[in-house]
């Protein structure tokens, strides 16, 4: 189908639901903020570089300000010292927002079961997709982005997500 042809639909009218249209747009324009801390961030760099090319999935507009982003990619180990920063970044992102935990460390602390490491970022922020691997291959990170796209298609209306989530640092 040649999309450059603006007369394609002629005078026709398409009926649909507003959610469907909005989510259709969102799906192909995720703006990720990469909270890259460790080895997994290096693999994220590879995901963004030309061979794996995250822009094929419409998620290449990497934002360096959380206020511009709607997808938080946590790639790497998050220590207790970092936890308040992660929370602050998450709080600064506008709704609706999604979170990917890349790798064993972000998902569960990985093999750093010790005094320094947060045992999974879901103690602090709600997570939508977990990616296994230490580090995951770039394909796995792409798969997670596609997973978010699938999830987001089913999102109802313009709701604030995860209102019932309570993290360990939420009351302090």
């Amino acid at each position, binding site marked *: 189908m040649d999309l450059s042809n603006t007369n394609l639909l002629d005078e026709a009218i398409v009926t649909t639901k507003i959610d469907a249209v909005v989510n259709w747009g969102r799906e192909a324009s995720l703006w990720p903020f990469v*909270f*890259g*801390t*460790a*080895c997994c*961030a*290096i*693999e994220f*760099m*590879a995901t963004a*570089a*030309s*061979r794996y090319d995250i822009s094929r999935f419409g998620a290449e507009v990497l934002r*360096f300000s959380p206020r511009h982003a709607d997808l938080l990619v946590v790639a*790497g*180990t998050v*220590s*207790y*010292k*970092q*936890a*308040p*920063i992660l929370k602050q*970044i998450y709080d600064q992102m506008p709704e609706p927002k999604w979170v990917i935990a890349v790798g064993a460390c972000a998902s569960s602390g990985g*093999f*750093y*079961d*010790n*005094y*320094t*490491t*947060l*045992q999974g970022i879901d103690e602090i922020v709600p997570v939508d997709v977990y990616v296994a691997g*230490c*580090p995951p*291959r770039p394909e796995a990170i792409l798969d997670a982005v596609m997973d978010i796209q699938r999830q987001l298609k089913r999102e109802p209306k313009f709701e604030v997500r995860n209102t019932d989530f309570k993290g*360990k*640092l939420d009351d*302090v």
Partner: protein
Amino acid sequence: MMSEAIKIESADLLDTLRKARDEEGYTLLLDITAIDNLYKSHPPMTRFELVYVLRHSNFKDTRIYKVPVSDPKTGVETVSGLFSSADWAEREVYDQYGIHFQNHKMLKRVLNHEEFIGHPLRKDYEITKGQYCTVSQDMMDEMQPLLDARNLDMEKDELMIVNLGPSHPASHGTIRTLVALDGETIVAAASEIGYLHRGFEKSCENHNYNQIIPYTDRLNYCSALMNNIAFAKTAEDMLGVTLPDRGIFIRIILAELSRVIDHLVCLAAGLLDMGGQTNYWYLFNPRNNAYDFLSKLTGARLTNSYMRIGGMAYDLYDGWESDLEDVLVKIDFGITESLKMITHNRIYNDRIQDVSPVSAKQAIDYGFTGPNLRASGVAYDLRFSDPYYYYDTFDFNMVVGSVGDTYDRMMVRFEEMNESMKIIRQAMKRIPDGEINVPDKRIILPNKNCVYGGIEGMMNQFKLVIDGVKVPEGEHYGAFEAANGELGFYIVSDGSGTPYKVKVRAPSFYHLSAYPKIIEHYQVADAIMTLGSLNIIAGEMDR
């Protein structure tokens, strides 16, 4: 082989170190650490001992001083007046072991957060006892004295305080630098690290030697194999074994390939920071080809865990030569294309020449090693000054800069990649056939036929897996020329399969400790480039 330490009393510490520096030529303070003797079977008189590792200006000899600490609360006199590198090293000992350093200017935690209670590397601190951190510190306690020393006032001089990091696109990992700005110019700066402190050293005390290999991968994750090799080599030195020649050659090839990959990532990211996105593609893509080769060989792209104490997991695969040659050709191409774009590029040259120069004397005082030290014109490379693994039989050059500015630090890396590829090509020609692992049942796992075919082999495997490789009692400092500089492991063994203590001498730790000082008087945009050129890898720095 074990390192011999010289025992001195704490009262003589300052004088001895001054004498070592001024009269005996031990100008480079490599590392300071402590040992907690609480669980030793024959504990010495005092619970804590401090260890000072120094290197001679011939860059071959090391000297280790051990100082008993009778009371950690009183501690010992600081040596940060003699060596700038001692500043953060002492803070780390204070943080991890709770040993005080008298007259230290800013003795506060450096790796753990401010709300942390206790000292994690003390033997009676439980490994899994994590402590939540609720707020980040404002760091004005460090900034204010700096401003006072420069006679500056926030209000009167209209300064602005800005945080670079911890989450900043150009901070290459989570590093925080607080800068006081006068317009665009940095007038004072202080760095905070520890955001990626992952308890490497504590984990080592709870895992046997081969289990530590995967942890070493994640120190400098841009050249994981090199950390594997450095750690395995230190343990092998303690065991008194050397690999058969084929094993050594495989290690040389992989170490040099890792050095190339490390430099590629550093330069690609550095150039991207200054807007050279095309260079990023040219340098980053051949790295992907190198990873294809490594994943075919080791099963993993980044965190290879390929080495073992006494050898490696398996031999090279059939047809590796052509794969590797192909990778080298692609890297060559990437470097050439990238250099074409920057060598005579005024934007590149003007932006980084004469930015944050570090003189040779300063660099040694800060504890610089590796490419950053060589950029300052100091001809120090362990592969030359203390050649291990036949490095003296290869034909390659040491790359040395002149003024130690950002330009030199980057260009030294460009040239070093070519030298490393020379070594790889020679090693590919010279690699002999034969065994890859030391033929010793107490170190290397038996092959699977023996394990499944007989009780002796099975017991052998069982003992090695459960107890680990038993390293003779003693202490040793092993140094290795890694991509970022001298990577040292100080291992204390009590004769069991689990180390009593492991301390990493991480080059990035010392490079970053100098960073806030060398970016002063330059602009924010320059500081970003300087950070990129120092190649700070948080995993290695914070451990």
